[in-house]
Structures are given as structure tokens and as C-alpha cells.
């Protein structure tokens, strides 16, 4: 079971977990990314490359499914304007045992950060906005999954 969704509507970890809860697996892991109120940030704006971003996420989900023999994998990413406190991304994985579910979940969020065509802008309380810079630490974390 694989579900990849890019949506401009609010997303929810609880709803993302539902399709994974009755696959017969003994383990489900999830990661939720939330818009943080960093220094004056009131909202994020997420841009993506329609078509390519879906391909990126499907490729990552397929890789995780195969590498960890997952029973299920859900990747949901919100786009457009996202208020502080709202969910930006939800990853959820189901597997027979915990190591597979946990590792696949960490893999998916680490690699999504470096491999999927999304760009994030921060809207500040003074009305200005600035594009978020890619972080070297993201590359480092993503790199550890290549072997």
C-alpha cells in the first residue's frame, strides 16, 4: 500500500495513519513536520514543480518500500500558504517489525528534504518574505542513506 499526496489543503497525521493501521504489521512509524514560529515567521509558503515533485516522492516511497519490505507507506506534503503551527509534511510507514518502520520513516523525511522539488518561503510579521536556504546538514543526513 503506497500513498503519495501533494495538497494545498490542511493535512493530518491522524488521517495519514489510518490506512496503515490494519495491514497486519506490528509496527507503524510517523514523522510530522510543522511550520515553526522562528524569529518573526508567521507563515510558510511552499512551492513545488507539478509532475516532477510527485515523481520524486513516488521514487522515494518505492525505494523505501523495497529496501525495508514495508507493508505500507504514506507521504503527504502540503503546498501553498501554511500558517505557523500547521502541518507541512507527514510521513508514515508500516512494517512487520519496528526497525524497518522507524528506519524507513527517517529515510523518507531525510531524503525528501534533499531530493523532492519543493521550495520554502518564510513570511515574516513585518510583511517581508524570504526564501529558505538549503542546509548542508540536510545533505549530510540524506547522504548516510546512500550505500
Amino acid at each position: 500500500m503506497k500513498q503519495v499526496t501533494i495538497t494545498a489543503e490542511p493535512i493530518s497525521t491522524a488521517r495519514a495513519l489510518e490506512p496503515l493501521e490494519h495491514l497486519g504489521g506490528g509496527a507503524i512509524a510517523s514523522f510530522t513536520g510543522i511550520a515553526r514560529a522562528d524569529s518573526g515567521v508567521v507563515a510558510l509558503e511552499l512551492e513545488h514543480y507539478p509532475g516532477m515533485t510527485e515523481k520524486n516522492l513516488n521514487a522515494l516511497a518505492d525505494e523505501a518500500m523495497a529496501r525495508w519490505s514495508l507493508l505500507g507507506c504514506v507521504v503527504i506534503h502540503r503546498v501553498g500558504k501554511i500558517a505557523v503551527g500547521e502541518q507541512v509534511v507527514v510521513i508514515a510507514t508500516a512494517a512487520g517489525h519496528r526497525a524497518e518502520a522507524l528506519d524507513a520513516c527517517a529515510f523518507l523525511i531525510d531524503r525528501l528534504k534533499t531530493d523532492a522539488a519543493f521550495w520554502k518561503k518564510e513570511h515574516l510579521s513585518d510583511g517581508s518574505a524570504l526564501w529558505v536556504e538549503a542546509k548542508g546538514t540536510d545533505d549530510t543526513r540524506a547522504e548516510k542513506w546512500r550505500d
Partner: protein
Amino acid sequence: MRFVYFARVREAVGVDSEERDLPAEVHTVQGCIAWLESCDPRYAVAFAEPARLRFALDQQMVAADAALAGHDELAIFPPVTGG
């Protein structure tokens, strides 16, 4: 060739996408960049930091020296920052 731009690059170029006929001597992604820069100063601004540019040909990530032959769409954008 159809050009598409995202994020900071899109804002600097001023359009989401555009269709352009390439000169015969342009064969690579890097060649496109140099040629666009010669067309209008706003491309020079958009592409000012080559280390912070990424490219996709028909939605596949490629390096700057990738050949254009057989492709219809070149996307130019900064490093991704999703999640």
C-alpha cells in the same frame, strides 16, 4: 525549448515559464544559461550564483553539462528546501 523557473529564480526572471527557440550553437544546460544571460540582464541576476542553481530536463535532475538533445523542458531552480 520550454523553460520553467521556481522560487528565487522564478521571481528574478519574472515569469513561471516561457517557450524559446534556441540558437543552433546551444547544446547544453550550461549553454542555455549563458545564452539567456546574454538575452536580458534579469537572467544574469537570476543565475548570478551558479553553485546555487539546479537543473532538470523533462523533470529529471541533470548536471550543468547535460545535453539538451531530445528534451522539451528545462527547469532552473535553487536547491530544494521542502519538508
